[in-house]
């Protein structure tokens, strides 16, 4: 016989003021299974909890109903109380007679008492079907994975490594550095980007706790918090990293020239190459799509010239699997393809470029050695037009969101043009100027007041060529009249967008992303670097447009979260998870796509049937991944899946009890 104890709390006058608690306690005595029932002024207080513990002993109670405030408030309190009274914490049910009863029905004591009685009856009916549940623990693998080797990934890796944990950075390009490596100067201080980034790259490369896995991609992710099994595809570099000294002779002798992605296709690299001179690791890879040997079978110049015989054409992609305790996703962003804007003539006009092209043009190590020369004929432009919000804040053709960084980098570009070309004129077409950030508005003010950039509020409706000039036609909405500027070069501030393979990675790791494929944080305010998947954290622009300081701050935050996890040997798991009755499960797999955590899978079991051994498939729940939502239980038609603590039997008992 199950023996339920019912404890009705007065909560001072909070409950007792509207509910006749003594009567509820009296009524409860007649409910099936109830062995003891009482009321008390403050059940959560020390004497209240002692009362429960004593009653457990004196009346041999084996499950408890506390009718008081919301379980969202004191369920943990009373669970602890049960545990110290010698009962399993999950043999508790609470009836919420404060928030859901006394506080909302203060004027009708009879009805409120009736309702409180029914809520207690529901709780008693449920608790009779509660089972003791055990929290278990899962071990934490003390190794972190950072996906993406841009500034956010590097910062996160450094912070985790400095806390004493091993970190692997997986970067798909041959070098770490990301977009920041392409940038010339950074706002609002005009520090040289390379001067602040490259030391961090070197620090990461030399850190005893950091392994760089460049030219590699994530192939598969399995497992759960503390125990992610990640398969990494190390793409064939065709260069033996252990033999190569990075002397660069091969890159000088390679006969094949390919437009350099790093230089925005404005100059060439070789087929065997490092993306940029400060690359880390500074050892080349062979671009097999363009390499003469790989395309025609002849050449082998680099192999012959290499003094250490490091070139190896027979290398193949290698798959390695490693277990990690935590994952930081820092895959960054891509730039909006603005070829949809026919009015800006992209593709047709060589001198209409993007902000990132411009970064390379003003960069001392760029294709023009830092001299601003326009791409078409190498002339120094005198009149430069900048157009902001190309793809941003444009639901019709681009993205609805603000890309956040363009206002500031356009101001920076305008300043740099005015600084480098003394007799230049700079025009900026804008919708709004948004400069929240330390020192940002001051910088913008200097751009207009000190450097004399001319800001024109309005959209550009057309750009067309006239001789060697570009005519930019738009409207000055402040003056309410059309404007036309003769420009030598036009720079578009294109929107930041998610990486093209962002959704694929999110699906692989198992977390969610928004309609623009930016990764979704667990809570926009209170959990901004966590994902809904425990153990997976976000850093940088993969979560949404961000500038460098924000990316770095978020990376350090994600690192702190990862370190918090890795500092533990093991972590407790919530026992409220789904479970499978294998005898009933037909293995149809309808539960699998419903689970948001990839906690469900099918496995093959063996059993005896009709005198022989047969195999069949059944569902299996990974309790490390399951968060206990119960969606699978409804997808399962035969009720082979059930959610512990919220079982079908328990919910049906509550429904039935309510109807008595």
């Amino acid at each position, binding site marked *: 016989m199950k023996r339920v104890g019912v404890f009705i709390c007065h909560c001072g006058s909070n409950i007792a003021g509207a509910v006749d608690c003594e009567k509820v306690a009296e009524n409860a005595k007649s409910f099936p299974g109830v062995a003891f029932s009482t009321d008390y002024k403050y059940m959560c207080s020390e004497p209240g909890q002692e009362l429960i513990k004593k009653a457990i002993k004196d009346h041999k109670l084996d499950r408890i109903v506390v009718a008081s405030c919301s379980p969202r408030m004191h369920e943990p309190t009373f669970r602890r109380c049960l545990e110290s009274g010698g009962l399993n914490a999950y043999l508790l049910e609470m009836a919420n007679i404060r928030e859901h009863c006394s506080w909302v029905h203060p004027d009708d004591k009879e009805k409120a008492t009736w309702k409180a009685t029914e809520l207690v009856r529901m709780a008693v009916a449920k608790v009779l079907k509660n089972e003791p549940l055990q929290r278990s623990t899962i071990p934490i693998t003390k190794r972190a994975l950072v996906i993406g080797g841009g500034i956010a990934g590097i910062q996160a890796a450094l912070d985790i490594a400095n806390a004493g944990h091993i970190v692997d950075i997986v970067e798909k390009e041959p070098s770490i550095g990301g977009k920041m490596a392409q940038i010339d100067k950074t706002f609002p201080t005009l520090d040289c980007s390379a001067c602040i980034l490259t030391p961090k790259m070197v620090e990461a490369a030399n850190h005893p706790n950091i392994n760089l896995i460049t030219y590699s991609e994530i192939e598969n992710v399995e497992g759960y918090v503390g125990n992610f099994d990640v398969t990494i595809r190390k793409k064939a570099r065709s260069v033996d990293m252990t033999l190569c000294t990075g002397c660069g002779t091969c890159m000088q002798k390679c006969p094949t020239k390919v437009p350099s992605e790093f230089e925005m296709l404005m100059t060439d690299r070789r087929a065997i190459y490092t993306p940029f001179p400060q690359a880390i690791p500074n050892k080349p890879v062979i671009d097999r799509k363009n390499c003469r040997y790989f395309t025609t079978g002849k050449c082998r110049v680099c192999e012959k010239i290499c003094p250490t015989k490091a070139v190896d054409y027979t290398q193949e992609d290698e798959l390695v699997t490693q277990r990690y305790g935590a994952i930081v996703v820092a895959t960054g962003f891509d730039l909006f393809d603005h070829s949809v804007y026919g009015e800006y003539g992209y593709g047709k006009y060589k001198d209409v470029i993007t902000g990132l092209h411009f970064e390379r043009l003003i960069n001392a190590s760029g294709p023009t050695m830092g001299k601003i020369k326009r791409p078409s004929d190498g002339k120094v432009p005198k009149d430069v037009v900048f157009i902001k919000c190309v793809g941003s804040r444009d639901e019709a053709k681009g993205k609805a969101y603000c890309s956040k960084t363009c206002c500031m980098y356009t101001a920076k570009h305008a300043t740099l043009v005015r600084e480098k070309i003394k007799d230049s004129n700079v025009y900026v077409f804008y919708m709004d100027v948004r400069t929240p950030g330390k020192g940002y508005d001051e910088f913008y003010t200097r751009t207009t007041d000190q450097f004399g950039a001319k800001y024109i509020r309005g959209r550009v409706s057309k750009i067309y060529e006239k001789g060697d000039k570009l005519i930019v036609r738009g409207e000055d909405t402040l003056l309410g009249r059309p404007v036309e500027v003769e420009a030598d070069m036009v720079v578009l501030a294109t929107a930041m967008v998610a990486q093209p393979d962002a959704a694929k990675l999110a699906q692989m790791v198992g977390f969610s992303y928004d*309609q623009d494929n930016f990764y979704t944080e667990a809570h926009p305010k209170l959990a901004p670097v966590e994902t809904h998947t425990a153990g997976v954290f976000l850093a940088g622009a993969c979560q949404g447009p961000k500038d460098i300081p924000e990316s770095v701050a978020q990376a350090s935050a994600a690192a702190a979260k990862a370190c918090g996890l890795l500092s533990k040997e093991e972590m407790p798991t919530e026992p409220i998870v789904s479970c499978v009755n294998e*005898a*009933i*499960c*037909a*293995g*149809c*797999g*309808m539960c699998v*796509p*419903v689970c948001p955590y990839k906690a469900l899978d*099918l496995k093959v079991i063996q059993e005896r*049937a*009709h005198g*022989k051994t*047969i195999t*069949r*498939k059944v569902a299996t729940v990974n309790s490390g991944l399951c968060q206990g939502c119960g969606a699978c239980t409804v*997808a399962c*038609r*035969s*009720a*082979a899946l059930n959610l512990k603590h919220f079982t*079908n*039997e328990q919910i*049906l008992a509550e429904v039935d009890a309510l109807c008595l």
Partner: protein
Amino acid sequence: MSDKVKKMQEIAREILEKGEAKVVIGWEKGTHWYLSPPAFIDKPEEVERLVWDDFCHNNLSKYLKDYVNHEGKVAIFVKGCDSRAFNRLLQDKQIERDKVILIGIPCHGLKDQDKAKELGENADIPKAKKCVECRYPNPLVYDYFIGEEKALDEVAAASEARDFSDVEAIETLSPDEKYEFWNKQYERCLRCYACRNVCPACSCRECIFDQTRVGWIGKANNASENQFFALTRAMHVAGLCIECGECERVCPMNIPIMLLNKKLIKDINLLFGPYDAGVDVDGKLPLGHFDKNDPEEFM
């Protein structure tokens, strides 16, 4: 004997003689001229039992569930609806494709058994209702095909679009009239579960209505429990029903079960876009995924 039956028997004999399959499932003549129940043939000399006529109603794919643990392959004949049922069971991972040999038969539509019984052998017997509305008369998947040239022997769909006029007729009733209608139907239900047993969408190992421990359903036979059964079963086959109409055919009380199933098919198509169960084996099930832009009615 028609050419088709000859061909059926030839293929079945060949399959059994060569040992490609241990058993061939087809139809044979039953106790009455208007009945053609399933035949399970495991000896080449017995293939002459096989028939193909206007009453081969049974959806044979469901019987494959009985053979999952048998060694060797099973060969079955499939009409359009049997092949959709086959796809359904495949999609539910209840059978393995390479353990089954499918012999496809294009189907011109079968005749109404009850009317046949009533009108007699020489009368002009109307087509079964499910066949009048059939949109997939040809097998969607098969290894052998009964017919010389597939293109010539394929049958035109009896109907291009679904006919929901029967569902709509109920939808226009008042809530009380609707309840009256259905209550009358389910007062008669015996809960014999024949509808479930014959259904290719019901592929559970143990149906919840057989799970007495949980107490999903009471033992009492009354309209309330029977409706719990009917509504639950309708929801359980939502998005899975292939409209073979077998549930309704086998119901001893002539309850219009397809009127419930068709209501859900109608709404699934209306709310979530066109969907035909058992056509695309790799597709997502209507209740196995969602669209963020699904209709929003719960503001």
